């Protein structure tokens, strides 16, 4: 763990060495704007320290106040331009709890299908059009010519599945725009979005989602159109998954020790995805039961062990700390109001819980010795130890698969978690490929390559679930149960919470209604968890400590340094920063300055 990186040590000098300040601002090929400021010791080939800060503030929880609560999903969808539908869905979940309304099963299946298509699309475009570029021929030639040499001589073990003879052939296929697989995945990202549009109307801000159900017309056509595209995707995954296994396995071979790139302590959170409409009634009192019935099981995982998979526990122990961010504290100075003292089960609710948060922005100069981010610090209180854990989502898939595997509750034929630390994913026969079963096993590390690998496996997981949902939806239609909406009334006073998995991981929406209006609304998407700056206890956020632990394998010295290992570490979290982040590494003795080193001036005392 990053012992040199606590706030108390900030500004002190590290032992000597060829330490160079470097920053990358903005980090491209992610969603939103992220900058990374680092100090790297080129003698020991290690990153010395890292901070993270956001560059955009929009103020959703402020301008949503006093609006009609039924507007919440339309508004919150606009938080994110790649997974806005996850927000809209989560908001509908929270509203459904507040309005005490349960959509018809067919509507839930339509939402599940839309969300499955979102996972299929989003992971796909990110993996092969954004992250994939870090592993492409152009990049590897530039950063690690030795690795490129070796790639040309290394046969791809699954060549017969994906058609690329050597690892170098795979890398060439990932070159931006020129590469064949790059272009194919762009095209795949389109028909998967068409699948999404069939269910939720428009990508990325859906038009047909409402609290109480959907406006989608449940015709035979709509499900057939979805299914036909799904079979194409399944066929694609039968090539894509072995291709990525070959690529990532090769990096472990070619660069011994690569497992330490992006590695951090195993602290994972997953809030569960895909409601089981036959179990879920959106009542808070039964949330533990229906949470466990979700087709992706929620869970908090600490050091590889499942701490809880109870959504009520998960909810009650969420804390929002301020730390190094540009806000005034609401829990002191009488700034904030307590909206919820106890949840409907009688559990006390903390002042720093999202239900009781008040957002008070305080714009100021960026100061790495003080406040440097618009991102707050969501933490999960581990009651066993009293620690405020900086959980990460690993970009989503690794936490979802890990949690589902540990709980061992999912069994829907196409997907099964037998409870032996694995997840089995079955894709039926497609046009040119037989039925295939893929097995994801809990990895040894929470690191960059395993986050990336899990992403590909989760694409297959989402596709397999979609087969199940299509069958269930068709069965509803065949039985004549074509209602997709349940009417409701907005109560005068109510609270609600929604838990979902955005593509990149945990997503929660907390809502308080007073006088039929929004009195408080706080969404917590995955990136605030992953991108938090240091909190009041000095605990760094997940990007920060994952980057700090990263050894440098790049062959270039400081002059031509690309920072590829750092990029792979950061991008493995699938940063999505319309909520904005910058990262900063400091705390070493600066021997040489490059790029825009004055960004660190605040620390050089």
């Amino acid at each position, binding site marked *: 763990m990053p012992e040199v990186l606590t706030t108390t040590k900030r500004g002190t000098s590290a032992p000597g060495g060829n330490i160079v300040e470097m920053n990358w601002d*903005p980090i491209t090929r992610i969603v939103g704007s992220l900058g990374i400021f680092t100090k790297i010791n080129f003698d020991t080939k290690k990153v010395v320290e890292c901070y993270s800060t956001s560059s955009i503030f929009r*103020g959703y929880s402020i301008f949503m106040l006093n609006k009609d609560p039924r507007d919440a999903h339309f*508004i919150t969808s606009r938080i994110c331009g790649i997974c806005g539908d996850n927000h809209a869905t989560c908001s509908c979940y929270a509203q459904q709890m507040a309005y005490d309304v349960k959509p018809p099963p067919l509507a839930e299946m339509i939402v599940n299908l839309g969300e499955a298509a979102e996972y299929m699309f989003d992971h796909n475009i990110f993996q092969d059009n954004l992250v994939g570029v870090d592993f492409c021929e152009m990049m590897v030639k530039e950063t690690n010519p030795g690795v490129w040499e070796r790639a040309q001589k290394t046969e791809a073990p699954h060549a017969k599945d994906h058609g690329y003879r050597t690892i170098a052939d795979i890398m060439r296929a990932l070159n931006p725009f020129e590469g064949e697989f790059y272009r194919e995945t*762009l095209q795949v990202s389109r028909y998967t979005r068409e699948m999404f*549009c069939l269910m939720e109307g428009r*990508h990325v*801000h859906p038009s047909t989602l409402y609290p109480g159900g*959907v*406006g989608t017309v449940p015709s035979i056509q709509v499900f057939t159109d979805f299914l036909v595209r799904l079979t194409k995707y399944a066929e694609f995954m039968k090539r894509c998954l072995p291709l990525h296994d070959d690529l990532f396995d090769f990096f472990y071979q070619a660069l011994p020790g690569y497992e330490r790139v992006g590695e951090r302590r195993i602290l994972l959170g997953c809030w569960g995805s895909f409601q089981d409409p036959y179990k879920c009634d959106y009542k808070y009192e039964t949330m533990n039961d229906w949470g466990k019935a979700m087709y992706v099981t929620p869970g908090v995982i600490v050091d590889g062990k499942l701490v809880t998979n109870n959504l009520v526990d998960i909810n009650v122990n969420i804390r929002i700390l301020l730390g190094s961010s540009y806000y005034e504290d609401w829990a002191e100075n009488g700034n904030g109001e307590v909206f919820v003292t106890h949840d409907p089960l009688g559990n006390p609710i903390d002042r720093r819980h999202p239900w009781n948060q008040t957002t008070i922005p305080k714009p100021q100069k960026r100061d790495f010795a003080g406040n440097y981010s618009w991102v707050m610090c969501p933490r999960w209180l581990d009651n066993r130890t009293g620690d405020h854990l900086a959980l990460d989502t690993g970009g989503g898939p690794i936490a979802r698969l890990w949690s589902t595997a540990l709980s061992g509750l999912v069994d829907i034929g196409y997907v099964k978690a037998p409870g032996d630390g694995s997840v089995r994913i079955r894709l039926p026969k497609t046009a040119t490929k037989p039925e295939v079963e893929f097995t994801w096993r809990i990895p040894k590390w929470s690191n960059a390559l395993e986050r990336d690998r899990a992403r590909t496996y989760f694409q297959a997981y989402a596709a397999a679930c979609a087969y199940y949902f299509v069958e269930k939806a068709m069965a509803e239609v065949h039985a004549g149960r074509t209602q*997709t909406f349940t009417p409701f009334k907005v109560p005068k006073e109510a609270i609600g919470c929604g838990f979902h998995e955005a593509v990149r991981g945990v997503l929660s929406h907390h809502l308080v209604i007073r006088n039929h209006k929004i009195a408080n609304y706080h969404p917590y998407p995955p990136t605030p968890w992953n991108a938090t700056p240091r909190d009041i206890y000095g605990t760094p956020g997940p990007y920060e400590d994952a980057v700090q632990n990263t050894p440098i394998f790049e062959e270039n010295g400081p002059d031509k340094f690309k920072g590829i290992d750092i990029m792979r570490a950061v991008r493995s979290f699938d940063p999505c920063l319309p909520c904005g982040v910058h990262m900063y590494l400091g705390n070493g003795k600066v021997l040489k300055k490059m790029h825009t080193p004055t960004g660190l001036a605040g620390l050089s005392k």
Partner: protein
Amino acid sequence: MTTGLGCDGDSISTTAATLPSIEDVVMGAIPGLPKVHLHNPVLAYEVGDDFMKFWHAAAEGRLEPFVLVLEGSVPNEKIKKEGYWAAMGTDPDTGQPITTNEWIDRLAPKATAVIASGTCATYGGIHAMEGNPTGAMGLADYLGWNWRSKAGLPIVNVPGCPVQPDNMMETLLYLLYQVAGLAPLIPLDNELRPTWLFGKTVHEGCDRGSYYEQADFAHEYGSPKCLVKVGCWGPVVNCNVTKRGWMDGIGGCPNVGGICIGCTMPGFPDKFMPFMDEPPGATFSSSVIGPYGRLIRMLRAITNRAVNKEPRWRHPRPDLTTGYKPKYYAHQRG
């Protein structure tokens, strides 16, 4: 530039376009186009300073010609003493972030054309909602509605939340043709929208419009009928989504069961909220059309029943009753 107050949804949306696709333009698949280099943070190969060097070059007039595309609303950085609402890159002199507004100030005077992509950049959108803390606005509010580029072009607005993929790429393609001298000045309306995309209303293109004509309205959201009474603003909103669908004709808004919330409009979102209530005008117009619509619906039902029956002469009997009088072969009755 994607660092307005936005969500990157317009860039992501644009990757869904197929008519043309990004790769069609970047790889030169379309005849007549100049070679195009794309510097978008979501797709760029370069990172950090390697990426920013193009922006600095453009600001210093060393990258000619270029088209500036802005996504996200423009915050008001003047309403506070220090800090920033939106920024991209770090200023080497101060170590502070370079604000998005600073980039607009640097780049707009050098750009051949400026496009605002999506409703945030065009008119302010969601982040400019009443009660917002940042004073957000659209690009034309910031630069001035009469602003002209050095080549004499007004700002080109392609609204939509997010922008409809093909609307964006088609507009970009038009501008590239114009820059190459292959097309006349892009036709824009008063709100600076391409007229061929935004000249008609949602309702005029909606395949549920005929339900309205027959006064047959949905009263809840799962219905396939006209949605005006449950919140659809389609009759007064400029947008082609019902004609074009969302992607290759698939999806959309009221045509597939989603109320139109006016997301392409300068008045979005405030003038359309609460979204799920019936628009005030719809109450009047839908009751006026009631008697006419119900009568028409009844008459059409009668005709519909009639045309659902085949003509009498299609039968297996041994006589021909079509009206043709054969000279040689047919059995004659009696």
